């Protein structure tokens, strides 16, 4: 049988793609959560900075032509609520620097509130600048409050949220991995079930798969069913063809032979009779060859798809001996069964019957008239031996191993009809069952002994 080359695994591929998807999602989740957190943290810092600046602006006014400014305590203390971040500020009125950190610059841009992230005193800070126009001596002048805060708190929050996001992402990934393992296994299960159910079938079982399968497998199973249907048809056709071919050859032969037989009875002239006899002999040889070809084709076909069942070799031999009795009787040959009970093997009944019949055909042919052919069944350790022993000339000493080859005949079998396939058939049957053939001559007296061995059940 050809080995199937395995390339990749659906389950692994499914698993890998599910895991890759999960990993992608987990990473995406991580970044989304992180960016949301960053946005939220930035927003909340911006809001507090804005509130702080607003509270300073709200506490400022122009009184009697002079700017009155107040820094409410809460303006800065609120900045300390979320984190221990450093705070810098500056208040500018028009071109004048009023108070705070004189080197803290305004945020460029339009609008009342302007935000910016920049470095101040070697640390990144978030800066808000909030402006309002105050009228001083009838002239609108811009009061600007600039507040900056370092971003450690935000960074810490981010780190914390990142680690939570990472944990969530990892958890998500692990959960997804578990689910992926389950999913891929359950996805592959119908395939395995199909494989098991197809693998368990006997060689004759070419019924279509009827059990419901997932929709994705419908195409495969439909193709499999069509394939089995075609196989069934083609097997039936080839079996029929072999049978038909043999039949087509043998039927006219039989008719001719019968006619020749009848004619032979009516003809008296010796040379005519000799010719007829010669003709009948040729016909017999052809017919037997066709029969053996048929047997051999059948054996070859079935050997590839052994149909195992428990079978009793003793019983099989008894039935075969019984059936061949009339044929043996024609030549006054005694067909003797020497059997033991319980010789059980696991095998294909039809094949073993065929093998034994071919051996017995040979034995009956080669035995001298009024001889004895013994069929013996023995159990030996873990083997069952099926032997056929005749009292013919035996096998020639040379080339005995060649006898199991197709169309090989013993060199001393001249004049006896037979295509020589009998031993080949027996050999192939034994091999197909994990056994073998031993060909020997009888130790006591003349004759051959062919023994088939099978492993016991």
């Amino acid at each position, binding site marked *: 049988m050809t080995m199937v080359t395995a390339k990749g695994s659906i389950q692994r591929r499914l698993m890998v793609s599910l895991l890759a998807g999960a990993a992608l999602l987990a990473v995406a989740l991580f970044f989304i959560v992180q960016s949301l957190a960053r946005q939220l943290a930035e927003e909340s810092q911006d809001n507090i900075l804005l509130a702080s600046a607003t509270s300073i602006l709200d506490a400022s006014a122009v009184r009697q032509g002079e700017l009155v400014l107040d820094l409410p305590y809460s303006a*800065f*203390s609120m900045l*300390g609520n979320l984190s221990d971040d*450093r705070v810098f500020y500056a208040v500018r009125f028009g071109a004048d620097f009023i108070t705070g950190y004189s080197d803290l610059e305004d945020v460029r841009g339009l609008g009342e509130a302007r935000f910016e992230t920049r470095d101040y005193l*070697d640390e990144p800070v978030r800066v808000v600048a909030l402006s309002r126009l105050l009228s001083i001596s009838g002239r609108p002048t811009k009061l600007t409050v600039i507040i900056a805060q370092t971003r*450690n708190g935000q960074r810490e929050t981010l780190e914390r949220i990142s680690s939570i996001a990472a944990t969530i992402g990892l958890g998500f990934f692990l959960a997804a991995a578990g689910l992926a393992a389950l999913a891929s296994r359950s996805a592959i299960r119908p395939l395995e079930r199909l494989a098991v159910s197809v693998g368990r079938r006997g060689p004759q079982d070419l019924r279509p798969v009827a059990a419901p399968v997932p929709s994705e497998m419908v195409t495969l199973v439909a193709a499999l069913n069509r394939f089995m249907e075609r196989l069934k048809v083609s097997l039936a056709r080839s079996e029929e063809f072999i049978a038909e071919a043999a039949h087509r050859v043998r039927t006219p032969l039989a008719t001719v032979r019968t006619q020749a037989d009848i004619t032979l009875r009516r003809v008296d002239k010796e040379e005519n009779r000799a010719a007829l006899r010669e003709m009948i002999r040729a016909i017999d040889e052809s017919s037997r060859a066709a029969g053996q070809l048929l047997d051999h084709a059948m054996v070859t076909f079935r050997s590839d798809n052994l149909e195992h069942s428990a079978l009793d070799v003793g019983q099989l031999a008894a039935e075969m001996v019984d059936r061949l009795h009339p044929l043996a009787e024609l030549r006054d040959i005694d067909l003797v069964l020497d059997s033991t009970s319980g010789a059980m093997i696991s095998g294909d009944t039809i094949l073993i019957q065929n093998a034994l019949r071919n051996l017995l055909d040979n034995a009956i042919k080669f035995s001298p008239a009024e001889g004895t052919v013994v069929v013996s069944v023995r159990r030996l350790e873990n083997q069952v031996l099926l032997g056929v022993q005749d009292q013919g000339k035996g096998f020639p000493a040379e080339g005995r191993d060649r006898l199991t080859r197709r169309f090989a005949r013993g060199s001393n079998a001249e004049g006896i009809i037979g295509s020589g396939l009998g031993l080949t058939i027996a050999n192939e049957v034994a091999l197909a069952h994990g056994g073998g053939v031993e060909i020997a001559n009888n130790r006591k007296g003349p004759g051959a002994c062919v023994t088939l061995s099978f492993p016991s059940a």
Partner: protein
Amino acid sequence: MRHALISLCLMAAAPAMAFEIEARVQFGPDNAATVLNVISTADIDLFAPVILGYLDQTPNTAVDYVAVSSGELMKALRDEGAAFDIAISSAMDLQTKLANDGFAHAHNSDATDALPEWARWRDHVFAFTQEPASIVVSRAAFQGLTMPRTRQDLIALMRKHPDRFMNRVGTYDLRLSGLGYLFATQDARTSETYWRLTEVMGSLNARLFCCSSDMINGVASGELSIAYNVLGSYARSRPDADQFEILLPTDFTTVMMRSVLIPKTTHDADLAGDFVDHVLQTAWAERPPKDATFTIAGEVRNAEDDSLRRIRLGPGLLVFLDAYKKRQFLQAWEDAILQKR
């Protein structure tokens, strides 16, 4: 020896500094390999036990202790960039400002991690005492009077007996004392009562001092009847403590925390860190040594009294340090306290 030489050089350089030194003491062996330079607002006597305890654990090290006012400390570190390893101050606002403006070195250790949130700001400022601003009164002067429990009581009392308290009320000169300014701004932030009290004190021609000890001396000498917003610890540590009544007003009592930080100019951050840890461990010890002069407990460790207002470390303290704001505040204060002059 190399370290000793370096420290000698540092000491030689010290006199050239422009800030004003109140006192200076060298603890530990003269030939110590390393010298830790401490700038502090605490009196040397009060802080000595902590330093000695540190030197016991750390051989071959000396401590050069420089006592200054809180304003000078700020000046030394912020304006002059003087090289110190440790800065200890009662002026929480200035310590916070130093840290905020980047003049402090971060320090992180088991000892700092053990501190509660309120006792530290960033990894820079670490609190190791809690000291309530008290009203110290002379028992003699209050003969026959009910001891005031709140500021309102005190105001009423002073209004009722102006003759008895005229010229006999002492408080910080906010223009000189950083601590006084801190207490005053916190009082003002907490309650409007402060301004009424200041006005009453002003009307009684209150006398202004630079420091707690001077005010307590005044009370002890009979010169003063009332010292407002002084550190009770100074009064309690005196041998004649029984002459005073140390009052913690029940309307609210501001609690100051002394704090330590490592200046950016430290020459040995690790050594400074060890010292900080030692101070914190000593102060925060569950059972502090008998001779400990500074502990986190103070009078208030276990007091969960609503009236105790612990000054919060943080950017809020920067508000009253703002030059504009300070000018406004001092203007208002002067208007109140110096009304008659």
